[in-house]
């Protein structure tokens, strides 16, 4: 009786907790929606005027442009239309490209996820490996070298690293030939559905992906190393060893799972940023992704496009956070009960 009651109570608590998290996420999204609208209305620059800049456009034409974007209406009316359209999935028409915002974004999301997603996964794998090995063999040559390299990479500005790699491997230095393209995502005229097309994209992907992987992995390596070091002094590891477990097993079964928690948080937070791209690296390598798109949108300024990408970025971060919360409670029972 008593156990059954406790169990059902636990279930509802978990439900309530998950419900709370989801409700919080929805509220955050709603806030972002409202904030987005007003934020971009206080930016300097009149889009209708910017779009007709430096051309002999009569005042009536500018008015017509403004009218066609709904900019002539009072603010509350613009806001109502914005909320209504966004909820029905219509993000508006981009001022600059004159195409639906959802289309413009959809076109750029693939390249960004490919570049940033792949770099994130690679940097997680390599970073965790370096962190674990470094902590396990603390003070070893590998540890000292990897720690130094990680700190250097962590401190290095991404774009600078990107330009260095571009010059070294894109253009070539001394006897080293420029093996990789200096920018873009594909060679004009290559058939994208063929094997040559896939390889062509891989070639273009290599340098930006290498740059981002190097830039990201330091963070994982450092966090993993320090959280594993924290665990190494714990009594349960002594116990594990006393049971006669081999070193590798102690590391894999006991130390790493416990040390992974802070890293998990970091991973999920960063996964949320995968869609928002990497503005600086996309710029250095002219990679046609969302980071670059948002930069271009900002300089017009293209309100609907900006609102669209910011909504997407915010939503991605919020969703990743909810996932991290849920997964965290699965990984660490203390979160569930506490």
């Amino acid at each position: 009786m008593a156990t059954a009651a406790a169990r059902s109570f636990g279930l509802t608590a978990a439900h309530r907790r998950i419900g709370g998290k989801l409700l919080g996420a929805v509220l955050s999204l709603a806030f972002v929606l409202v904030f987005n609208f007003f934020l971009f209305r206080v930016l300097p620059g009149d889009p209708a005027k910017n779009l007709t800049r430096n051309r002999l456009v009569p005042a009536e034409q500018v008015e017509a442009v403004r009218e066609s974007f709904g900019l002539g209406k009072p603010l509350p009316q613009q806001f109502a239309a914005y909320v209504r359209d966004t909820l029905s999935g219509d993000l508006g028409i981009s001022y600059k490209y004159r195409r639906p915002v959802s289309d413009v974004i959809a076109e750029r999301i693939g390249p960004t996820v490919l570049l940033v997603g792949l770099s994130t996964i690679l940097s997680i794998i390599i970073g965790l490996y370096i962190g674990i090995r470094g902590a396990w063999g603390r003070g070893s040559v590998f540890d000292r070298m990897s720690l130094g390299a990680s700190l250097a990479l962590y401190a290095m500005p991404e774009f600078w690293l990107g330009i260095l790699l571009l010059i070294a491997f894109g253009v070539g230095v001394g006897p080293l030939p420029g093996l990789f393209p200096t920018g873009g995502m594909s060679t004009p005229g290559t058939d994208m559905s063929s094997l040559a097309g896939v390889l062509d994209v891989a070639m273009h992907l290599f340098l930006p992906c290498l740059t981002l992987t190097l830039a990201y992995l330091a963070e994982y390596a450092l966090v993993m190393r320090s959280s594993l070091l924290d665990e190494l002094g714990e009594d349960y590891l002594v116990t594990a060893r006393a049971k006669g477990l081999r070193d590798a097993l102690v590391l894999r079964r006991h130390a790493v799972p416990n040390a992974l928690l802070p890293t998990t948080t970091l991973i999920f937070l960063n996964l949320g940023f995968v869609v928002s791209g990497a503005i600086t690296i996309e710029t250095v390598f002219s990679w046609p992704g969302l980071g670059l798109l948002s930069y271009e949108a900002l300089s017009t300024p293209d309100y609907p496009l900006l609102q669209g990408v910011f909504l997407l970025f915010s939503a991605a971060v919020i969703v990743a956070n909810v996932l991290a919360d849920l997964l965290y409670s699965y990984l660490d029972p203390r979160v569930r009960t506490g």
Partner: protein
Amino acid sequence: MVGTGKASRNRKARRLEAAALTLAVIAALAAAPVAGAQEQPAQKLTFTVGITTDIDSLNPFIGIVAESYEVYQVMYDYLVGYSQKDFSPVPELAESWTVSQDGLTWTFKIRQGAKWSDGQPVTARDAAYTFNRIMKGTFEQTNYPYTDNLKSVTATDDTTLVMVAKKPSPTMLRMAIPILPEHIWKDISAKEVETFENDKNAVGSGPFILEERKTGQFVRLRANKSYWAGAPKIDELVFRPFNNADALLQALKKGEIDFADDLDPAPFNSLKNTPGITAVAADYPGFNELAFNTGAALDTGEPIGDGHPALKDKRLRQAIAHAVDRQALVDRVLQGYGSPATGVIPALYKDLHFAPGDGQGFDFNLGTANQLLDQAGYRDTNGDNVREMPNGGRPLRFRLFARQESGESQQSAQFIKGWLRDIGIAVDVRVVEANRLTEIIGQGEFDMFEWGWVVEPDPNYQLSTFTCGSRSYKSGGTITANLSDSFYCNPAYDKLYEQQAVTIDPARRAQIVKDMQRMLYEDAPYVMTYYYDDLQAYRSDRLAGFVPQPDPGGVLLFQYGTYSYRNIGSPSQLAAADDGGSSALPLVLIGAVVVLAAAGALLVVRRRAATQDERE
């Protein structure tokens, strides 16, 4: 112990195997483009232009950036073109034209033999359709505001186009409107045209035909082998955007692109000594100026803004004109790539350009400037080294706005601040975004700013920016910027403006245009600072035959016309063959060596792992 030892050895073997695999993958990647290049016919000559702003739309009614207009130019023809030598009107789709005695009826003879890329003939009806679509369309007019003066445009037969103007106008031959195929565009409604992308199977009559567009990546066009003015010598034309000037420069050095323009002086100088690259500092029709708030007001005359009242005084502005060392700005800001400016129509438009005679201009002389200010009654009465106005004593402290996006703008502002300090004028330099500055100027909330214009071959537009009617206007309670940024308003100038707009005779019009520039020079709403060069560079080892506009000294690309695109080819058949071999061969060799090495390493690793397993 033994167990651990084996594990670690195996791990080492596995790591070597992984390294070998990575090497193999890299080698395969490196070899890939070579394989791709070999599949294509060896003779195919592609010309790749690196651009710094992506093409925003291939629909000529939507695009705004200059790069898009460059693409429209190669895809479509105009009725009348601009000569390569001096921009004078030359036949394009219209092979000849006549104008009636009263200057109102223009009859164009459309050339026979021009074809759309889908095989249909280009006729006068297509031209009439395009003009009428613009005249009747609100949206269509935003990009082509040339049709205000047109009463009607009709095709009387397939080769005759008749335009009736409201007033006689010299700009009748200056309407840069791409002629579109009626049989395609008639199906695109007034609503649809606002979002029509025109990026698939676009039909044009220009020297190049659109092949493929990837937003943010490239626009690829193929040569129109049956172009009426002769087939281009190159086979393909690619525009490739770079978002980073360094990457653009590296791509040119490596040969990924063949042409770059708008380069900064430092990289440009480095390219001058690079083998295989020719760097050209080309005359460009742009100028920069120090502009004054000469008394901000709406087009109705109602004053706006908070400009310093002293700047309404022509004598003060003239004194400042004497205190700006234009040659120093050219030497130090442009690093020599430009020339001191005089009239608002740049020097490369020889027939229209105004320059004062020797000793009659505002020569740089701080003594003269100080003297003029003393004479006008601006004196420093309280000993703080800043002069005050004669009545009321408001000190001459001016805000000078520079653009955040432009290092040159900020440098110029600092130089100017220094010179003005020497004549007792205090300057507060403020750096803002160009977008924000447009707003500030439109509201009249400035004293001075540094900016510039790019001037079209026809002077009408540039001259219009100084008319009273171009000042800001009020719509629905808010003040909106128009073209005027100095708020200059002079009825005598406006009268000349109206006059030049209806003067068809080029020589008489040129005289009026020069008189207007003299008026502007003397009234000094702007202190003209410099005309700047466009720093361009191209792979002369791959391509030859670029032609400048104007000739000599002008730009090689981004011209008014498609001259270079149609004229360039490989320096010689032999050189082209050599080049193809030399660039591909090392890559193939390196690829092969790396593949072999990787395969070898893989084999050794496997073998070693196997023997280890056997041993244990």
